[in-house]
């Protein structure tokens, strides 16, 4: 009997706390647990597509909330993981065909999922136009990333620049840990061959981007 009363009392106490406005923000660990549950309960997905919801180590590190800064150790880990992710094309050639690269740069499609199906495309686009200014005078371009207009004109088309550019597209986080740029090669959105074409589009003197 006594016990029962005590239970009742504590229940009232808890309710009282909430009513009295003493509800508070949950701590970090609780927040994470609740939010992660929401992710996996909020989407419909196949076993294959589940990987798009699961964070890899770098994505975990790069999901800083608000103004929280990356620590040096974390940045170093992201860079290390990025460096390890890079694969070069079988041919060994890092500069492909700029015309193919031009088309890829202006293609924003590929890999999107609706009703459980991936959009059917021959290949994924490189998405560049969405976020970067490209050839001079082009209007329909984004500005989330820095302009790429005159990219090769400014940097030249040496082997070192070609390699840097390839790596930058393959996994931008090797040079800019946790930047907004998708790791297009590392996430397998683009193939190594496709990336060589985009490299050509950026550094070839004939490319409209360098005109």
């Amino acid at each position, binding site marked *: 009997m006594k016990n029962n009363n005590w239970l009742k009392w504590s229940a009232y106490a808890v309710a009282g706390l909430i009513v009295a406005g003493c509800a508070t923000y949950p701590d970090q660990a609780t927040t994470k647990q609740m939010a992660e549950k929401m992710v996996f309960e909020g989407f419909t997905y196949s076993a294959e597509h589940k990987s798009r919801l699961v964070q890899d180590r770098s994505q975990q590190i790069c999901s800083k909330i608000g103004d929280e800064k990356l620590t040096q150790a974390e940045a170093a880990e992201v860079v290390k993981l990025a460096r390890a992710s890079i694969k070069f094309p079988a041919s060994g050639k890092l500069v492909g065909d700029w015309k193919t690269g031009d088309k890829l740069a202006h293609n*924003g*499609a590929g890999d999107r999922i609706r009703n459980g199906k991936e959009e059917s495309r021959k290949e994924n686009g490189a*998405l560049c136009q*969405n976020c970067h200014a490209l050839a001079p005078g082009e*209007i*329909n371009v984004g500005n989330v990333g820095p302009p790429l207009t005159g990219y090769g004109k400014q940097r030249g088309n040496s082997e070192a620049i070609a390699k840097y550019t390839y790596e930058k597209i393959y996994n931008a986080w090797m040079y800019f840990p946790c930047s907004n740029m998708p790791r297009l090669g590392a996430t397998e959105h683009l193939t190594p061959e496709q990336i060589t074409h985009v490299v050509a589009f950026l550094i070839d003197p004939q490319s409209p981007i360098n005109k």
Partner: protein
Amino acid sequence: MKQLRRNFLKLSGGAGAMAVAAAAGLLKAGSAWAAPWNKSAFESKAVADVQKSLGAATLIESKEITITAPDIAENGATVPVAVTSKIPNTQSISIIAENNPFPLAASFDIMPGGDSYVSTRIKMGKTSDVRAIVKADGKFYTAAKEVKVTVGGCG
């Protein structure tokens, strides 16, 4: 004729009666009040043919016509276009999207009491001059403004 029509309206209680009249077959759909649809102008694929079908032999460039439209349309499906004519006795305003498959989008006959201003929204397939042709005192005047059309979305 006009007088007759107005009397009819008055007698039958105004606009509300129109549907009744139409249903009774008293008025042929679209023909009672509206001028006949200018089929040849609307079905022309070339701007020159549109001009001909509107009856405009020659066009006079005019600064008295103002076209209000965005320089860049975010979405070609809904491009706002407004035309104001300050030319005295403006009788009609036509709106033409030059690069559309059928360039003539709309033609507005302005009657006494109407102001020489119209505003609407048109579909544009690609970047194009939007041209206004204004008929005033039997003469034809024109002005144009380029509207850049970009494909929306990320597809």
